């Protein structure tokens, strides 16, 4: 986020010294994410919504579901799309205007994690093949920034989708017509969970906070599904990982992801 300063260098030295003793600046274990809280249905006018706090990072996702034209070669599938944006008050360095490359990456990584897990069962979202399908749009806004937007945004979108209901449409005289009062839960197949890890020196830490994020040499985001399989991954940052570290990160993402998945399930059940 912010550019490196002398303070950042001092912080990094301190963070690294602590890590050498097996400690983190905020007292967490190396593989411990920050506290996660999920508020379902924060925007009742949306078809589904969730406000998520991960430490001091706060994001909001609203899901809109509406009829749409299918993609030309995908006439038998509905549409799923996920976007992410930083609101201008979320951090002093955020500017209005076209998104910067890091925000484009954020939106694409969050979208890819959910898409590749096949969470939203798009095969069930067809109104009339090749003509009209249902589009599911999960739009995420970042309200307050304290690093690791990847995971916060992913949890918000997943929680919002898990608790979304979709209206029903049919074709009457070649016109898309809403069937009054017929609402059903959005068909989903799995719960994807993204886990972002930072590498500082030779240490791998889960869910870096703001100071840790600015001190990272590299990062990796791995999304796993309910079967404990890996379905998407993105490495970032200006250093590399050894092959052993990559395998280790895979294991962490499965293990820590399972705990987060329980939280998402709780949130889903709590909303019913």
């Amino acid at each position: 986020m912010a550019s490196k300063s002398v303070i950042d260098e001092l912080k990094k030295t301190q963070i690294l010294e602590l890590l050498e003793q097996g400690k983190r600046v905020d007292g967490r274990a190396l593989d411990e994410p920050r506290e996660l809280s999920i508020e379902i249905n924060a925007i009742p006018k949306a078809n589904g919504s969730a406000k998520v706090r991960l430490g001091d990072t706060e994001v909001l996702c609203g899901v809109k579901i509406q009829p749409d034209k299918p993609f030309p070669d995908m006439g038998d599938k509905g549409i799923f799309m996920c976007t992410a944006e930083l609101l201008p008050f979320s951090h002093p360095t955020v500017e209005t205007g076209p998104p910067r490359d890091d925000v484009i990456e954020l939106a694409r990584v969050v979208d890819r994690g959910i898409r590749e897990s096949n969470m939203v069962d798009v095969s069930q979202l067809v109104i009339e093949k090749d003509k009209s399908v249902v589009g599911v749009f999960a739009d995420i806004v970042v309200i307050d920034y304290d690093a690791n937007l990847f995971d916060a945004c992913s949890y918000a979108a997943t929680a919002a989708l898990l608790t979304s209901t979709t209206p029903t449409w049919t074709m009457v005289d070649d016109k898309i017509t809403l069937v009054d009062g017929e609402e059903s839960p959005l068909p989903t197949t799995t719960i994807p969970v993204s886990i972002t890890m930072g590498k500082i020196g030779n240490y791998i830490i889960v869910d870096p906070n703001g100071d840790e994020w600015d001190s990272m040499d590299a990062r990796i985001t791995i999304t796993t599904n309910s079967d404990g399989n890996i379905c998407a991954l993105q490495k970032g940052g200006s250093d590399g990982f050894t092959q052993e570290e990559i395998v280790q990160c895979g294991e962490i993402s499965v293990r820590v992801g399972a705990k987060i998945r329980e939280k998402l399930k709780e949130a889903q059940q709590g909303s019913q």
Partner: protein
Amino acid sequence: MGGREATMVLLDENGIRCDGRKIDETRKITIKAGVLKNADGSAYIEFGDNKILVGIFGPRDVHPKHMSDTDTGILRVRYHMEPFSVTERKRPAPSRREIEISKVIKEALEPAVMLEKFPRTAVDVFIEVLQADGGTRCAALAAASVALADAGIPMRDMVAACASGKVADTIVLDVNNEEDQAGQADMPIGYMPNLEKITLLQLDGVLTPEEYKKCVDVGVNGCKLVYEIQKKALSDKYFGNGKD
């Protein structure tokens, strides 16, 4: 992955893929260093049917000036596809996909380039995809490394690149366009063979933890094959017979 149905046999009973390759075989790769006159360094790669040109400028003054860093040089990467490089014409303006790929390639090269030797300057890497056929980011990264070396920019290591993936329930090396569209997973990898570090890694598609481990392993081995071709490109130019 693409979610499209396979219209062809991706892997036959003899373990032969749709383009005639074995599972651990890359497509035909040729790299030529020093192909542009004006650029400080350049390379051209043919990676299967991918055709990609890379030109390097720098280290040079940074414009706009506020982007410069007093402690180190900066690396700037632009990955761009020509409108005619793909089946359906691509709009010429950079897409979100191209912006993301530019960023991951930049971050894959940064660990290798000794930018701290050139404070307040920029090294610009311009990647132009003339023809695309699956796996362009790996091909572009491999060519960009050769072009940086051709520009005489000090480097800690070469960055080699190759993708692995899952096709017809099998982990294979170097996923082509058809396999990417109809396959089950695609994992592009960038790797510094001497420092043994992975600097680019992405994945889409579902893998079990075991397949994941194997996929990284197969991809890293592919990178080592590509590394040999990168070295050959440089030795052909600088120690080759007569030319240049």
